[in-house]
């Protein structure tokens, strides 16, 4: 459903859109909340301007070490630069928007 990998990221960048990578643990309640929160946020603030890659660490555990993931869920904004890391279930929306540089759109 979601384009993934470098090719997808490059295409998204060309369009000037947001590329997210969300690391989750499949069964975890926090992960489900994070996916829901991110989807809602994107729908509200970045309609048609985002791509989300979801990495399930239970299915692909070697990425923990290679991508240095300590907390789950972890959201990485791959583009636009700079790369930003956000940990938690993204329930604190204001913080997320601040981190993504989107806070001006709220309030």
């Amino acid at each position, binding site marked *: 459903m979601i384009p993934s990998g470098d090719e997808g990221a490059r295409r998204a960048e060309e369009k000037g859109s947001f590329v997210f990578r969300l*690391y*989750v*643990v499949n069964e*975890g309640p*926090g992960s489900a*909340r*994070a996916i829901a*929160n991110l989807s809602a946020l994107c729908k509200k603030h970045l309609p048609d301007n985002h791509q989300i890659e979801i990495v399930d*660490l*239970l299915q692909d*555990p*070697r*990425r*923990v*070490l290679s991508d*240095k*993931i*300590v*907390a*789950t*869920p*972890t959201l990485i904004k791959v583009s636009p630069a700079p790369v*930003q*890391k*956000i*940990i*938690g*279930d*993204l*329930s*604190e*929306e204001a*913080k*997320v928007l*601040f*981190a993504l540089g989107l806070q001006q759109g709220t309030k």
Partner: protein
Amino acid sequence: MKRATSSAAENQDVAALHKTPTGVEGFDAITGGGLPRNRTSLIFGGPGSGKTVFALQTMVNGARQFGEPGIFVAFEENSRHIVANAASFGWNLPQLEKKQLFFFDAKVRPDVIKAGEFDLSGMLAGIKAEADARGVKRIVFDSIDVLLTLLDDPYAERREIYRLNDWLSESGLTGIITAKSQGDYPFVAARYGFMQFMADCVVVLKLQVVDQIALRYLQVMKYRGSSFAENEAPLVIGASGMEVADISAKTIAVEASPERVSSGVGPLDAMLGGGYYRGSSVLITGSAGTGKSILAGLFAEAACRRKERTFYVSFDENPSEVVRDLSSVGIRLGPHLKSGVLRMHSARAETFSAEVHLMNIKRIVREHQSRCMVVDPVSAIVKAGAALTAGRVAERLICLAKSEGITLLSTSLLQGAQPLSEETPVRISTIADTWIHLTNISQAGERNRALSIVKSRGMRHSNQVRELILSDEGIALADVYTAAGDVLMGTARWQKEAAEKTEQKRILAEVEHKRREVALARAELTVRIEALEQELKQKEAEAERLTGADARHKLDLVHRREGLEQSPSAKIFKKRPENSHAAGKKMTRGRRLPKGGGQ
């Protein structure tokens, strides 16, 4: 839920509790084998107390010595920094890395924003996969408090700690979790309160500064299912990593040797009945300038001459100074130092704690395989930290020498209020086998050195005080004179000796004189006896002549004289009786004389 199963399993195999050696010297001895295998151990400690070093060393030793690869999860420091910091220990981390030792940079950078709840399940799943893929047996989480700070919620903290613990007990890995403690008591912070119940082994590391010298300790607070030495054990972080003093009560298993080793001083060997025992510890005490270092130097020189590897530790004096100073009394250590038979080590006492000194000594002793050792002076260790600690270090130094079969000679400076109280500041006199005490006796305007053997276990030894004489020809021990309760030494002794010699000479001369006088008298008498015998013979002959015809002829003459006296010419004859009277007188005298000569 998992707590119940794990404690049930624990009850079943308490007897079969396996241990994982850390390879940290001393720690494995204290705990009887190391950390609990496949269990979790907590390492508490303040900043700089050595938690990371302990954990990392356990990993390195596991990989290098015990064939157990490990993962080091670094929450606090970048793994690059850890590798760089450990470079000085010579563990060769870059070579181990990626084959037997894996680092996981789990440091959460400050620019990471926290927006909502999170947990560690993903990370643990990833580590498990990594551990399985690489056959990992040991794991470190360093340090957990960084993670807890990130969670910033007591409920979440507890939840994640239990998650970690459950994960560890399921993984079958031997785990170390380090945690920073504030202040002396590690469990003050409520967040750690439950952790000590959770872990199977709890170790506390402490760093104290006493008299400006850093002292480190390690204490095992808890070890489920195992006995352990519960006192604080001194700890040192040195050139090759961490070392923990073995405080476990183990007996010295080395058999006592009946062999004697020369003290380097012939007369002293005689006083000791042959020298020091091989493998014994000798203590030489005395105030400054009593000759302690010289006795130490002589012992070292004698050992080197026997081609025995000797290790000379001097404090506050560098080796070249020691060699020069000793050569002034004819002790030549230079050639032995060059040939490698002698190894010298010097350190400034205050620079390090006593523990560090001991560790350095230990390392060199093993490297050099020393058979004899000199520590001059062991009392310098007192300057390196609290006196009590230093005393223990001195004791352990003796134990080290004993267990390695090394003959140890240490000197101890006595000073202060009771310089002659024969009490060593380090209080090692009780565990030294032979104790020689040197004193400066000051009398008649000079100081002299006196040597006495205070004790010497297992050998007969002289109880006499001797004078220690240093000269260009070396060292000598002289008997001292006691006169009117005073011990005479130095010039006083020399004077006494000289006076005795003069007296002896005088007596000899007198006797000779008398002998000659008597001989002369005898010779004179012999001559006189001969002369008198001659005279006697003459007189006897004369006496014979006077008998017989002569007597009758004389009687005739008497008769004639009587006749003539009545004649006018009588005056002419009167003179003759006078003459004979005079001759008679002479005879009387002659007869008396032999009598007088005979007396």
